[in-house]
């Protein structure tokens, strides 16, 4: 097999889910970059676990060199293909909001684990105690961010970034668990609409597993 370009061989390994790999998959599609979308069954995780640097997935292999940690992977690919903001300052804001998002995910975790069926618990009570207040805080920041950014279809800057993709995908997940979860954040929802209507992304969303 002769490579037609100098492009590296990319292989992204994760479970059969969107989860923490979906943003990276979307970046490959948006940039028109071939990659191996390697999905492993959860039951087989034990076989692969010790082969990963941090005993976690996703991992990205670039010409066989392994990179762990979903945000490090997303940021790496985003930078390679131009989805990490137009300046170091924009990149820093994206990183800051992405880390704030990670904190929010930690706070809603007791609800999330029950919502995905990984734990037992009172869905409604956990939603009120963990999901709603933390949503109000974090999405309050995003509502302001979208407005301050001119409702231009992006959260930071004037071009699509990995943070846009991160949030759009999360909204989909939360709306599946709680329809109308983000109805109080119209600027966020408007931004999400524009993001998911990006042609190459729309195409992927329609055809993905």
């Amino acid at each position, binding site marked *: 097999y002769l490579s037609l370009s100098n492009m590296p061989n990319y292989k992204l390994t994760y479970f059969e889910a969107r989860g923490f790999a979906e943003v990276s998959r979307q970046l490959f599609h948006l940039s028109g970059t071939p990659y191996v979308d390697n999905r492993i069954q959860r039951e087989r995780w034990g076989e692969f676990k010790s082969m990963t640097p941090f005993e976690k997935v996703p991992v990205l292999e670039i010409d066989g060199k392994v*990179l762990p*940690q979903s945000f490090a*992977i997303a*940021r790496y690919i985003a930078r390679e293909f131009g989805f990490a903001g137009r300046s*170091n*300052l924009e*990149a820093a804001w994206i*990183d*800051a909001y992405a880390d704030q998002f990670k904190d929010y995910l930690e706070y809603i975790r007791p609800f999330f684990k029950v919502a995905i069926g990984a734990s037992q618990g009172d869905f409604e009570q956990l939603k009120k105690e963990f999901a709603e207040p933390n949503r109000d805080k974090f999405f309050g920041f995003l509502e302001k961010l979208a407005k301050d950014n001119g409702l231009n279809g992006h959260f930071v800057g004037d071009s699509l970034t990995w943070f846009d993709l991160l949030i759009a995908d999360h909204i989909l997940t939360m709306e599946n668990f709680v329809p109308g979860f983000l109805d109080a954040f119209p600027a966020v929802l408007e931004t999400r609409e524009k993001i998911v209507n990006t042609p190459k992304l729309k195409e992927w969303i329609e055809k993905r597993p």
Partner: protein
Amino acid sequence: PVSTLAMPSYKLSEFDTRGLAEVSRQLFILSGTPYEDNRISKDQWPALKEKYGFGELPVLEVDGKQIPQSLAIARYLAKEFGFYGANAFEAAWIDALADQAKDFISDIHPYFAIAMGMVAGDTDKAKAEIALPAIKKHFDLFEKVAKDNGSNSHFVGSNFSYFDILISEFVFSIDSFLPGSFDAFPTVLAVRAKVTSIPAIKEWIEKRPKTVT
């Protein structure tokens, strides 16, 4: 010398602690970049809180534009000043390790909450059940990374990165509560020794405000 006319004005705001702002302070010092080390007291904070986007510290202001979140700040400065690996792959590994270090902080945090009297609990029990397992889990990994990198006193590549500085500070802080906890990780300790031997860092460590964390 670098012209100060072209340089942005930097102001780093944090409580009077080392914490997760310390790595950024050291990046300013290592690069010889002037900055305002703005320490906010707990009394002042309630009135100031709404000035800051996320209502949290630390925050870096670059010509007045705010960047929150400690690792976003560290990464920004590391990029500006050249402490971010020699290429994109090294940079990504530095970021991956920093994210792993954040997981370590989450894992060990309950021990500190008890040890510092913020939460009720048995310190010895917390040490055995929370702190020591967290250290072992994460530092076995960091030790391996340092060794796989050639035991050259850096975690990634062959120059100082913000992760080298981050771990150096973690070791210092935790060792002050749990002396000897890192004796099993000599390659990690070698990174710390190298960071702290840099004259500007050595000098800063001697003169910086002495805080518990």
